[in-house]
Structures are given as structure tokens and as C-alpha cells.
């Protein structure tokens, strides 16, 4: 009876080894796949950060838009005075 119990324990340990190896292998594969993606994200983030340097030009655009608005409104005022109403 004691021998049978020991053999059963051996079989259980063998099954545990196989299952544990599978699970740990999957965890390791998942963990291994993360660093390359992080490196890729770092590259994209660096490029995006560099591209966003042009955002400062928006302030210039804002000034241009203000001057264009003033010019268009002046032009509209002139048209208003020059053309007859409907």
C-alpha cells in the first residue's frame, strides 16, 4: 500500500513538472516579447517628440490668422461699401 502511494506521488510530480514547465515557458515568452515593443515605442515617441517641435510654429500661424482676419474684415467692409445691398 505504501509503495502504491509513493508511485502515485511520483506520477503526480511528473505531471506537475510538465504543467509547470508549460506555464512558466508561456510567462517567459510573454515577458520576452515586451522589451522589443517598448524599444519600438521609444523610437516612435522620440520621432513624435521631434515632429512636435513644429508645434511652436502654430504661434506664428496664429499671428498670421489674426492679420488675415483683419485684412479680410477690412476687405469685406470695403465690399460692403462698394457693392449695393440686395
Amino acid at each position, binding site marked *: 500500500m505504501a509503495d502504491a502511494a509513493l508511485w502515485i506521488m511520483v506520477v503526480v510530480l511528473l505531471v*506537475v513538472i510538465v504543467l509547470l514547465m508549460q506555464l*512558466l515557458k508561456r510567462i517567459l515568452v510573454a515577458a520576452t516579447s515586451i522589451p522589443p515593443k517598448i524599444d519600438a*515605442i521609444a523610437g516612435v515617441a522620440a520621432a513624435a*517628440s521631434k515632429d512636435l517641435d513644429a508645434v511652436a510654429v502654430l504661434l506664428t500661424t496664429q499671428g498670421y490668422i*489674426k492679420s488675415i482676419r483683419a485684412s479680410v474684415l477690412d476687405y469685406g467692409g470695403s465690399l460692403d461699401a462698394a457693392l449695393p445691398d440686395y
Partner: protein
Amino acid sequence: MEIQVFIIIVLTAIIIAELAGYLILTIVQLFKINAGLSVVLPLVGQIVAKTNPVNPVVDDINAQLVVTRDALENLMLKKAGPDSAGLVESLFPGEGAKFLRRVGRSGKVVNVGTVYTRGVGILAGLGRGAPIGVAHAKGAAVRDAQYSTTEVAKLYPAPPDRRDPTQNIPKAPVIGKDPVHSPYEPTSTPGTRTRDAQGRKVEESAPPPAPTGSTESSSAPAAEEKPAAPTQSEPPSAAPARMSAKGSRPWER
């Protein structure tokens, strides 16, 4: 020691070694992840910092553009009236209805460029002499006496026999007696002049002469109070509200 016990001990050692090996490898990968994230996070912070002022600037630009658009749309409404949406539709298909919604009006959008040949409606609204004003006075003549009909023909589609079949230009529509969008509408009241033929201001109390169809009969309003009708033998009066200068010119006196 029994063989089963030995096997159990070996298997337990294998399990422990397996656990230790995989966990160590996993920890190494986690360290790499940590290092990678420490590189990424400052870059993300830079992106956030650089995009932070975008929203207010873009909002301000949008506000400026909306003010400009509203001003131009109001100007168009003021100048073109109910044809505004049709004009917008002729230039930007699909925008006429949006234009009407923006200005708070409703109705059917008639594409002016479809009802009329493109540009003709605008020129008709501006008047016959409009093309002359587009060029400098000292420049070349806009209205060419020799080829003026060619220029006009460019505005209107060619007849079918002279039309380029590849361009698929539609025929000019027949507007009919009562055009919906004709810029020429009959007036219900007689016209008034603020100045006479000599450039003098006409008093508002002077009623305009009745449209008899003859300019010869137009005379001073003061003369209408007289019982006798004016005759052609009478000298022309220089009173205001004359609709014609005929008879008052120096060579006609």
C-alpha cells in the same frame, strides 16, 4: 532508501530548478521592461508638454476663422440675398445647405451655377458694365470689339454642333417668362432720382412724373398744380425731379 523516495526527491529538485530558472529569466525580462519604460516615459512627457499649448492655439485659430467666415457669410447674405446659398452651392457643392443652416435660414438651395451658366448670374447681378471694371484703365481692353462675341460665348455653353463632346457641357437652361432667380424684377413703385440731369439735388417733396411713356410730357411738379396742361410750346423748366434732360441742353434751347 527505496527507489520511489529517490525518484520523488529528484523530481522535486527538478521542479525547484525549473521554477528558479524560469523565474530568473522572467525577472531579467522584467528588468529590461523597466529600463525600456524608463526611456519611454520621458519621451511621452515631452510629447505631452509639446502638445499642451496646441489646444488653446488651435481653438483661437478656429475662433478667428469662424469670425471671419461669419462676417463673409453675412456680407454675402447682405449682398446676394436669397441667392447666397445658391452661390455657395455652385462653388462648393454640398455646402449650400450647410450655409443655410449656419445662417439660420431654411429653404431649397438652387445651384446658381446649374440654373445659370457659371458666372453669368453674378455678372448679371453686377450689371452689364461689370467686366469693364476688372482691368486697369490704361491696360488692354477687356471688351474686345472684334472678339467680344467670343468672350461672351465662353460664358455660355456652345451649341451642340460646336460643343466638345468630351467635356459634356450642359445646354444653357431656358429660363422662361418668370424666372425664379432673375436679377431683373419689375418694380412696384416708380423710381425716384435724388439728383436731376444737371446734378442738382432734387427735393423729396417733388413727386416723380407719371410714366406716360413719353419724356416730352415730363414737366415741373409745380406746373401740375396749374389747371392748364403743359404744352410742347412751353419752354422747358429747370425745376427738380425731371426724369429727362431733353430740351434743357444748350443746343436744344
